[in-house]
């Protein structure tokens, strides 16, 4: 009874089994509601979607498409994080600061208008997709990384000085080593952006396939069960990678667990 009271009480912190129970109950209620009252409309019910999910993931072409999307996302993420890290660390050297600030503002540039330019620059469909993905992700990465750097307490640099480190050593200790865990967290958060963008860029060149291509084709034939099933798969894979990266962060940087517990 006390726990039921708690979940309606503002600013109450719930965790562990109570939180899991709350999520599972709400999900079941929502799905039941959808199943019972959504049967007559155009939108497929959860059971039909689940049947489609099972039939999609048991086909051979799904595995090819899945790995095509995953490979593209991971390559794009990898290259983007390297570019973003270089730009962010260089931003601490005054001469490179304007470049970093310009890249941050590139968040407001739409990709649509630049597709033609990228088509001219790149040599094939794969390069086009990869470069658009990187161009789309890097500004978000740089924005997050710069905000991490800006939030560093000046006392950490002062501590470095009292420990007789020069500016380069202080940069290595405080910004690079000291914030690696946060870089990982930025990667986790921005994986969502990359994963979301993948379906969009895959629509530009369908020769390599991919989940985005599957989605666009199904959309074209208004095969909504398949569309929803692919969305569920994309969603589930995204959640899985979020979970994976979160736990990898705890494993690689054990002190981050202490922050969370606090």
């Amino acid at each position, binding site marked *: 009874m006390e726990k039921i009271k708690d979940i309606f009480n503002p600013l109450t912190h719930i965790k562990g089994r109570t939180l899991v129970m709350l999520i599972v109950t709400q999900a079941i209620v929502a799905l039941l509601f959808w199943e019972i009252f959504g049967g007559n409309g155009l939108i497929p019910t959860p059971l039909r979607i689940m049947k489609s999910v099972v039939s999609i993931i048991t086909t051979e072409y799904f595995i090819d498409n899945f790995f095509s999307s995953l490979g593209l996302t991971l390559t794009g993420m990898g290259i983007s994080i390297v570019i973003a890290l270089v730009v962010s660390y260089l931003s601490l050297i005054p001469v490179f600061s304007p470049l970093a600030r310009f890249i941050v503002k590139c968040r407001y540039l739409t990709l649509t208008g630049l597709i033609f330019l990228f088509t001219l620059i790149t040599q094939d469909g794969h390069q086009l997709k990869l470069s658009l993905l990187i161009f789309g992700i890097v500004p978000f990465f740089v924005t997050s990384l710069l905000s991490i750097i800006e939030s560093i*307490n000046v*006392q*950490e640099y*002062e*501590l470095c*000085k*009292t*420990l*007789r*480190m020069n500016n380069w*050593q202080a940069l290595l*200790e*405080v910004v690079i*080593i*000291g914030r*690696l*865990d946060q870089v990982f967290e930025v990667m986790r958060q921005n994986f969502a952006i990359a994963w979301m963008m993948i379906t969009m860029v895959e629509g530009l060149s369908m020769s390599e396939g991919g989940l985005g291509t599957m989605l666009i084709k199904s959309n074209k034939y208004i095969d909504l069960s398949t569309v929803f099933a692919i969305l569920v798969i994309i969603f589930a894979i995204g959640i899985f990678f979020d979970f994976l990266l979160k736990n990898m962060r705890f494993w690689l*940087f*054990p*002190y981050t667990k*202490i*922050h969370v517990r*606090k």
Partner: protein
Amino acid sequence: MKYTKNELLIEVQGVNLSYDKQILRDINFRIHNIVRPDVNQGQVISLIGRSGIGKTQLFKILAGLIQPGSGTVKVGLDQHPVVAGEVGIVAQNYILFNHRTVHDNLRLAMKHASNTQNDKEKDALINEYAEKFDLVEHLKKYPMQLSGGQRQRASIIQQVLTGNRFILLDEPFSGLDALMIDRVMELLLGISTLHELNTLVIISHDVENSLAISDTAFILAREKDKEGATITETLDLIELGLAWNPNIRENQAFQTLVSQIKHKI
């Protein structure tokens, strides 16, 4: 009490600092090496002033972290201008690197120090200090897992391990209960007597505790109709017979002095 004041260790001469208004005005003071027979008698100096007077700015100038508008800070037996890294600082929030264990934080302090010890000797020294200051069981912990007192001890030892003889402490008694204050005092006295030249400069608004631990105190305050804080009074607590006495707080003359200083600042 037999003692002599020998070499000059720190000299602050004509330090001024202004931003949009004058913060510090004509700060002058000297710290000498106090020598007592049969004791490694380090120096414990207090700079006492009320909050917002400019203590932190003076703290940073003494550490060589910021340059004054004019004036000089000279340190060491050869009296050279202070360079960042020569004076250790223990900030009010006992800053340590949260991504390193306590042991690694202490090891880092020795990495850039001008010592010739090998890894084994460095670890032995860390263990020696950790044992002395009750941190052995916390060496493998991260700073976030430590209490305020433990962090403070780790932070002080970190600065000692750099080999710095001069350590500045910003408000070391702030936010501590009476029992903890006594432990911190013990710790600071322990550090000051580790080496003849060890010099602790406490910057605080806590008059009673600062005076209780110090051999010399400088009062930082504003003079009437003048902008910027300056040293308005120097208290030689050894001459006054109020230094090096663990029960000094029970002394009537000490209590009278504390209330006079509180009134002045």
